[in-house]
């Protein structure tokens, strides 16, 4: 298998998952489709900018889906899938640029995809469980402030 091919296929799968999670309104579906198409074109034509644009389109579909009444778990899944699609598409391009076709990279690509999926799944699951544990009673502002605090803490722990 050529370098980057496994990551590219999994990136498209993640983009499809994001599209399915957010495809509750026409606008959200169009944004999701644009994002998926952009990521597909980017991994085929080796364009990192296309990956960024695709991820942004997938991310834009999340508030559009929220306006259309998408459930909170679906939005969390969309967030995880969007991040996964971006990471794997970027990894696909990096792998293709770094290794000539005879090189075998599939095993490492699958290991990376598995690792990132577990990482993002844990993050997504954790934040949703915390949200659900508070019975969804916390206001969005409180959650946002909590996240801002987490970011500040992270920044402070490492120079």
């Amino acid at each position, binding site marked *: 298998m050529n370098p980057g091919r496994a990551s590219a296929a999994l990136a498209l799968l993640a983009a499809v998952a994001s599209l399915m999670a957010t495809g509750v309104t026409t606008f959200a579906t169009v944004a999701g489709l644009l994002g998926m198409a952009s990521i597909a074109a980017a991994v085929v034509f080796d364009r990192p900018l296309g990956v960024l644009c695709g991820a942004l389109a997938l991310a834009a579909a999340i508030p559009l889906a929220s306006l259309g009444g998408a*459930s909170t778990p679906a939005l969390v899944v969309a967030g995880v899938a969007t991040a996964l699609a971006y*990471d794997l598409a970027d990894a696909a391009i990096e792998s293709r640029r*770094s*290794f000539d076709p005879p090189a075998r990279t599939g095993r490492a690509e699958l290991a990376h995809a598995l690792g990132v999926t577990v990482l993002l799944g844990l993050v997504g699951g954790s*934040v949703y469980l915390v949200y659900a544990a508070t019975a969804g009673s916390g206001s969005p502002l409180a959650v946002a402030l909590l996240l801002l605090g987490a*970011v500040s803490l992270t920044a402070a722990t490492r120079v």
Partner: protein
Amino acid sequence: MTDREGWPAVGNVEVRRLGRWDGVAGLALVGCAVGVFLRSPGIVLAAAVGLALAGYQRLATPPHPSVSIERGVDDRTVEPGDPVTVTLTVRNGGRRRLTDLRVVDGVPASAVVVDGAPACRTSLAPGDSTTQTYSVETDRGAAAFEPPLVATRDVGGVVERAERVAASGDAAVECAPAFEPVDHLPLRAQTALDAGRRTTDDSGSGVAFQVVRDHQPGDPRSRIAWRHWARSGELATVEFQPERAATVVFVVDTRPEAQVAPNPAEPTAIQRSVDAAARLFATLDAEGSRIGIATLDDERRWLSPGRGRSHRARAHDLLTDESLLSGGGDSFDPVDSAGWLVDITPARSQVIVLSPLVEDAIERFCVRLETLGVPVTVCSPDPTTTGSTGRRLARLERDRRLDRLREAGLAVVDWPRDQPLQRALQEGKR
């Protein structure tokens, strides 16, 4: 990863953050703001995923690999143009899985990868190993491998640790010309007087029948043609072709003008000339001929014609000397060089000039030698191509030089780049 630039020095460890998720934190904070504005906890939670990634990127540390590498080559000494198969075995000797391990072998600068890839990216459990195989072709001389580059990344692929790890096993390959005889080597008629196995145009004693002539007083009785006498009643003497050793001097054109190749990936005309000299040397050596070697660079290297084991060793040393290939000197004078060669070459020797004949001076040198009474055979590796008008012109000019040499009575073997030497020699005979 396949570019030698940017590799850390041997003994150094480089850790770098790849910044793959740069900007995610900002985007996530914008998402948080949108979520607050729309009063949507789902958006804020989705943005939290991005924030978590940004946090991971900041906190992640690279794995410390314990990797051992063994390199093996299928042949440590190869002939020019022969590929060497390199096998690189990488083992994870640590106690943790290496999820993203990248290894690039330090292919010698003088080598070209012709098959496979010298790099691999894999994931290795503790104790596991992986094998990467590729093939290279090297230039003449010794080609030393450098320590491979080993890079490991964390599971998220955001931080990388790179270092050079010394490989056990084979560290170099040697590419030397083959002293492998050819089946046929056309020589000019003139020979020396020593006994050998090369049949000459002279007649006398030997084993190859040549002619029956009238008997003359003093002819040995052992060569009387008794059947002829029985048939005709007249005495006749059988003449045989004597087998004598030729004395041959190889003149290798090692001037800068001969440092030409059809393209950078192919051997230069000097390399091909030296390789041909090695093979022709082996051919004549097996026939018992006396062989000398001269070069046309400023150094004017000279090995007097001789034979035997020590002479063979000296010829081997001369023809495997890497400095031969650098094409030194710019003071070649055809008349002076021909005079020098005639002065030091034994009488009744003949000369085989190995040159691409890409300019006129070497043509004048060959003709001068011939006019001074030295039989000259020219074996010319063709470095020309037809890729452009200029190249086509160079080819035409070279063809005209070959024709003029033939017209001057020299034996000429034109050796095209895509043809084995053996075939070129056979066609040269015709």
